[in-house]
């Protein structure tokens, strides 16, 4: 048996590892020393700069934002739904493995679960910071109002995070072979995942869409298509995020990114983008042909208003069209190009989220009122940087501590690829041994 595969943490003889939380000394490092220095330096810098935003928010209140009573929601709400989407999308990719048995994605399973947990945490930080009275956030669990989607959401988020953590713990124990029976652990994963899929689709992300969809006062939010679009664009951003995470982590750790995995994920991404494009088409064409003047004014604002570039360039081009074009073009043979498409897409979906939140709040609800006007302040941007860097830091620290990116001990192909040798070679090697 080669030393390389032993270093990958195959627990052939695993004596003293008795807890899932203890760090396995055989685990390959999350990043190699150079990448680690650069990565943490960048994160620390971002946190240091972003903490100014946190300071302003805590001591200056919401007056430090560009929000007004005419524009009650802005960047933080947009980031909140963005990260809820990333979380739901990443979780749904993990369910492809654990529920639907698509083992070609096995490699990314624990990373998907961890991304889902961290994204959800970041989302909650954003919405927490957006509350006028942050200290009252916990009372949302105390008082329930059944007609309020937001009230349901708080409960769904709590359940969802608990379920994700449970699933990740089982997955880590499975990876370390600390479970009594591998089959039983797989079954537990399948059960948790099966509960999680409707929870993520209807509870967490569809539900977040429902927060907007029930607001009949605002054109373009109100309507049944909205929660569906939320879920599909979550799939888009979540899949794209996982492609980028896998690629950069592997590069940072000095391994070869799994080409087949990225190829397969890009197929999922492409499918999600196509469905998203279709739904976006209906979202716009129906109110236009129905001559709904409230909706039309918002569509005009998105398409030709002062921030039209966020619609055309960020949302449509970066979020959907360019990634789809790259995945369809001959460039798809290059892993780097696919990952670039994914990263462009992850950024583009931010545009989708901003365009969900901001433009429908701009036209006055009653003719004669002032028109809304909003652009995030420095504080809003800096606090966003702080939360995003904080999320990346938590993700990295957990990955340093637990085998998040390790292949499953039975996944010889992945281990062989990591060790830089073709699968067949490893097999023959093992047989000779």
């Amino acid at each position, binding site marked *: 048996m080669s030393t390389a595969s032993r270093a990958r943490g195959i627990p052939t003889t695993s004596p003293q590892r008795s807890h899932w939380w203890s760090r396995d000394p055989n685990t390959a490092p999350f990043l190699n020393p150079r990448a680690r220095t650069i990565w943490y330096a960048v994160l620390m810098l971002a946190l240091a700069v972003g903490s100014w935003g946190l300071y302003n928010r805590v001591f200056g209140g919401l007056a430090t934002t560009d929000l007004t009573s005419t524009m*009650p*929601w802005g960047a933080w709400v947009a980031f909140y739904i963005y990260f809820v989407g990333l979380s739901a999308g990443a979780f749904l990719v993990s369910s492809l493995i654990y529920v639907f048995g698509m083992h070609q994605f096995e490699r990314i399973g624990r990373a998907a679960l961890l991304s889902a947990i961290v994204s959800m945490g970041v989302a909650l930080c954003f919405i927490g910071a957006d509350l*006028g*009275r942050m200290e*009252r956030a916990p009372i949302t669990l105390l*008082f329930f109002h059944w*007609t309020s989607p*937001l009230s349901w959401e708080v409960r769904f988020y709590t359940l969802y995070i608990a379920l994700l953590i449970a699933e990740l713990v089982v997955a880590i124990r499975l990876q370390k072979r600390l479970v009594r029976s591998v089959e039983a652990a797989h079954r537990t994963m399948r059960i948790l995942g099966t509960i999680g899929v409707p929870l993520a689709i209807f509870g967490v992300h569809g539900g977040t869409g429902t927060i907007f969809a*029930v607001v009949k006062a605002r054109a373009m939010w109100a309507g049944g298509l909205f929660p569906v679009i939320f879920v599909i664009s979550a799939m888009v951003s979540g899949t794209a995020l996982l492609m980028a995470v896998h690629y950069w982590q592997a590069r940072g750790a000095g391994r070869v990114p799994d080409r087949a995995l990225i190829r397969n994920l890009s197929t999922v991404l492409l499918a999600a983008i196509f469905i998203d494009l279709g739904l976006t088409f209906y979202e716009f064409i129906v109110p236009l042909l129905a001559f709904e003047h409230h909706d039309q004014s918002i569509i005009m604002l998105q398409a030709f208003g002062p921030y039209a570039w966020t619609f055309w360039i960020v949302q449509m081009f970066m979020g959907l069209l360019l990634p789809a074009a790259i995945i369809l073009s001959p460039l798809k043979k290059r892993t780097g190009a696919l990952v670039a498409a994914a990263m462009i897409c992850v950024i583009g979906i931010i545009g989708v989220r901003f365009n969900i939140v901001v433009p429908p709040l701009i036209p006055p609800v009653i003719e004669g*009122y002032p028109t809304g006007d909003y652009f995030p302040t420095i504080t809003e941007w800096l606090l966003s940087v702080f939360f995003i860097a904080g999320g990346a830091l938590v993700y990295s620290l957990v990955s340093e501590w637990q085998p998040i990116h390790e292949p499953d001990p039975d996944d010889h192909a992945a281990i062989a690829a990591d060790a830089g040798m073709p699968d067949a070679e490893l097999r023959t090697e093992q047989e000779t041994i």
Partner: protein
Amino acid sequence: MARQNVTIHTTRPSDTKPTPEDPSWAMVIDLQKCVGCDSCTVACKAENRTPPGVSYNVVVEEETGTYPNVRRVNLPRPCMQCDVPPCVSVCPVNATYKNSDGVVVIDAERCIGCRYCITACPYGARSFDFGGTYSDEMQGYTDVQSPEYGVQRGKRGSYTPPVGTVRKCTFCTHRTARGEEPACCETCIGDARYFGDLNDPNSVVSQLAASPRAFRLREELGTEPRVWYLR
């Protein structure tokens, strides 16, 4: 005492079901009589001592048509105290609810400041209290606050409720509790505003609300406002 609303901030929707003795407050605004002087807005600001950016009442001035055929409408807009209030139904913690006298109230000790209700109100009647003050322009602005809902709040602090929560027109509950009209109605120089009890079929508001001139804003949304306009 039955009509005293001073306990409002401790009551919850479940215990605010109207009883026969409860009034059912409503307002009628005659657009033909409104001269667009904005006195009501000023009276409201003074009565409720609302901070910058918070106006419970505004007068929307709208001009339509082209010269010489122009029409100008002044539309005073308090909170409509909707009977099917979208602001109430979206509130995640029941901080805002319909009181037994028909007024939609906000519990500043419970509101988390999510501003969901602001997005949901089709009449733009809600404002967020960002904590601003007029102390630069007005001496002693922060020394005393309006006793909204009958609660004496004392000095206005930089982070004491209602700062950080949502605020709105309450039909001046602290005034109606002692038998007075809302400040906007009392001050209206055109005598365009009527305030009264819908439970009393002989009240002026009951009669005017049934007039053929009466209409309500954005009625198609089904919010059942308690403010009628006379065209």
